[in-house]
């Protein structure tokens, strides 16, 4: 596996790092600018190469601004690759069938379920995970709003909720309450923190409009 080393080092933070135990590859040291969307050039008109069953295919995934080129089995989901191959465990496993939203990531800026996306299908795409909303160790705006509004209980669905909110706000920066509920309708919260989640999305919209 080959990681592109073009990202800048993380800005120095005063005091002790807040993260103590096992950290995943790629968190906290993310490059600043997201790479432009890279769509693989279409192969020529005739036969494309068939990856035989059991074989592997080379893909290039731009995750949180950093390009990873690697071999994947065609059946591997993007969720599996993010967690088990890249160590980005912020994106969670809930159902592996597109019915809960815990694995929500952004693909080319749009909320999608990583479990329903084959890694080969994400080839060349611009992928943002929860880790990618951080700036060094500082929370992103949407994350901060979720913390302020107590928009979680057990916290397991939270990364997916934040990513869905992020996707919504990028398309609709001033959503009504109804639009917020519609935008968050693809993320289950068994703890039932929905009421606070709606508040957090509204707060995030506010903070973003203020440029924070």
């Amino acid at each position: 596996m080959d990681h592109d080393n073009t990202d800048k080092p993380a800005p120095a933070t005063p005091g002790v790092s807040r993260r103590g135990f096992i950290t995943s590859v790629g968190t906290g040291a993310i490059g600043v600018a997201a790479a432009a969307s890279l769509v693989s050039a279409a192969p020529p008109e005739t036969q494309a190469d068939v990856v035989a069953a059991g074989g592997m295919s080379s893909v290039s995934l731009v995750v949180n601004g950093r390009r990873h080129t690697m071999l994947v089995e065609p059946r591997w989901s993007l969720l599996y690759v993010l967690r088990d191959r890249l160590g980005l465990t912020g994106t969670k496993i809930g159902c592996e069938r597109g019915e809960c939203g815990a694995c929500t990531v952004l693909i080319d800026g749009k909320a999608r379920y990583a479990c329903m996306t084959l890694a080969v299908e994400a080839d060349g795409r611009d992928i943002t995970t929860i880790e990618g909303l951080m700036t060094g160790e500082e929370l992103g705006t949407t994350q901060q709003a979720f913390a302020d509004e107590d928009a979680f209980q057990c916290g397991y669905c939270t990364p997916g909720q934040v990513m869905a909110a992020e996707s919504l706000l990028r398309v609709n920066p001033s959503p009504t309450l109804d639009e917020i509920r519609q935008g968050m309708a693809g993320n289950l919260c068994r703890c039932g923190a929905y009421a606070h989640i709606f508040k957090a999305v509204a707060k995030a919209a506010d903070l973003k409009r203020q440029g924070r």
Partner: protein
Amino acid sequence: MLQTFAYVRAGSLNDAVKQLDGPGARVHAGGTDLLGCLRDDVMSAEKVVSISRLDDLRGITPAADGGLRIGALTTIADLAAHPGIAEKYAALAQAAAVVASPQLRNQGTIGGNLCQRPRCWYFRGDYHCTRKGGDMCYAIGGENQYHAIFGGGACWIVHPSDTAPALVALDAKLRLISAKGARMVPAEKFFVLPDENAQKENVLAPGELVTEILLPPMPAGMKSAYRKVRARGSWDFAMAGMALTLTMKADKVADARIVLSGVAPIPWRLQAVEKLIIGQKLDAKLMTKAADLAVVGAKPLEQNAYKVAMVRGIVAEGLEKLL
């Protein structure tokens, strides 16, 4: 977790139909239904043929006759957000807006939405039912609260698509391409009843693909809507739903199309109800008559008789609202 399969990214439409010509070859458009079917072992996939990079199949453009061409790879989200569709083909925009969840709408395609397999829990479960080549429909004597009240027989699935009834109501045509060539099929003729063939939901031949949907220009003053009733506010498929188009001339109905979702193995067009109201003034009395006529011939199973009342309610409410 998924079983292993061969994978090829088709470089062109020709390449795709060639690759798909053979047993065990499955098309991957958005992938939202394919992955679910593979996880549930509804069918096996020896080779997955991805058409997701065929950008020519994506997008909404004006058609020569003043209508609209929709590439089959257009996502449901793009469909729902398109101003031209919301303005002139509201039923389709409204149907797209209530499909699944926001994330699945970002991924799923209109072609995939039309071709998706049914959600019957016997079909998706560890049951070798008629539709999968077995000799029994487990819904008939089992848990059938979500199954069909029209068009059942050898099998009692309901077609899960919301966009399909809208396209039937809007008189859409589908362009199908195979290694043998192209053909146009009206949306209304695309779907297959179980008693004709209980193992397929539509007329696609093996190795054939939907490539685009053609919407005719809409008559001036035509209004349309899509209503979906489901168990929860998101994700769920229709328990019953209705695509409705209404063209008024003065205070009389000049034209109407009424197509139900969630109640039959195919989008269920209510031609008798259309005939009843066309040429008439749509007063409360006629609306009630229309609602009653909508359910004539319904054959509920043990647990889904509520769909009869529900359809009646949806038709009455829909006519009232759209008028």
